[in-house]
């Protein structure tokens, strides 16, 4: 009886673990990043990403670290854009006006789009705001950075971008 009960618990724990893991699936390192073209993004224009290293940043106008990250992404865009880096900043703002005011104020030199329905954010399973994904030329996620911690984050992203750009496509 004790043995059967033990087995029942083992099954229960296994099932609940699988259920939890399935529901909290996040796109991580090694996974293929969902297509931006098919994600139903609005407001902005997507850059050509084929054969380029892609930086996808999820942000919102109500998120203070996101605001702090934009100048850093502008510097990365300026430095690595010509070498094959494409930056797409995906806003999860529900209010179009909030998105537009933020973009107008910061005037980023890289592409910004809005995921109004949160379909891409849900598909990716964004774990924090902001979260930055670095995708290699083959479309695989190679680095995930949660939050933005000033120069330390910029340094880390710069090193990862350098390494990805050095790889042959």
């Amino acid at each position, binding site marked *: 009886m004790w043995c059967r009960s033990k087995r029942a618990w083992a*099954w*229960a724990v296994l*099932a*609940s673990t699988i259920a939890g893991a399935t529901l909290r699936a996040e796109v991580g390192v090694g996974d293929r990043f969902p297509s931006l073209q098919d994600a139903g993004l609005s407001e902005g224009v997507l850059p050509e990403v084929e054969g380029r290293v892609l930086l996808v940043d999820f942000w919102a106008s*109500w998120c203070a670290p996101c605001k702090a990250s934009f100048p850093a992404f502008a510097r990365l865009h300026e430095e690595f854009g010509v070498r094959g880096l494409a930056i797409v900043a995906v806003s999860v703002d529900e209010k179009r006006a909030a998105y537009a005011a933020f973009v107008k104020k910061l005037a980023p030199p890289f592409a910004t789009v809005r995921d109004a329905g949160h379909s891409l954010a849900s598909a990716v399973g964004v774990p924090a705001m902001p979260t930055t994904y670095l995708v290699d030329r083959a479309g695989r996620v190679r680095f995930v950075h949660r939050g933005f911690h000033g120069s330390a984050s910029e340094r880390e992203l710069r090193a990862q971008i350098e390494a990805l750009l050095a790889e042959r496509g």
Partner: protein
Amino acid sequence: MKAAAILAGTMASMFAGCTTVRVQPWERAALTDYGMRTDRDPLATAAAEHTYFSRESATGGRGVGGSGCGCN
């Protein structure tokens, strides 16, 4: 075995329910709204502070020395 399957199913649905009620990071716009701040009303904040340091005066309230009478 049947009991194990029922238990497994019940626990799976319970845990699954717990994971889906979580407010996702991209859904927190309302939480950052000005109206959600606890210090948005200066008068209410001052009153709460006064109550706090009066009640906690034995340890000086929020870093302010006091006698404990609540009159300062």
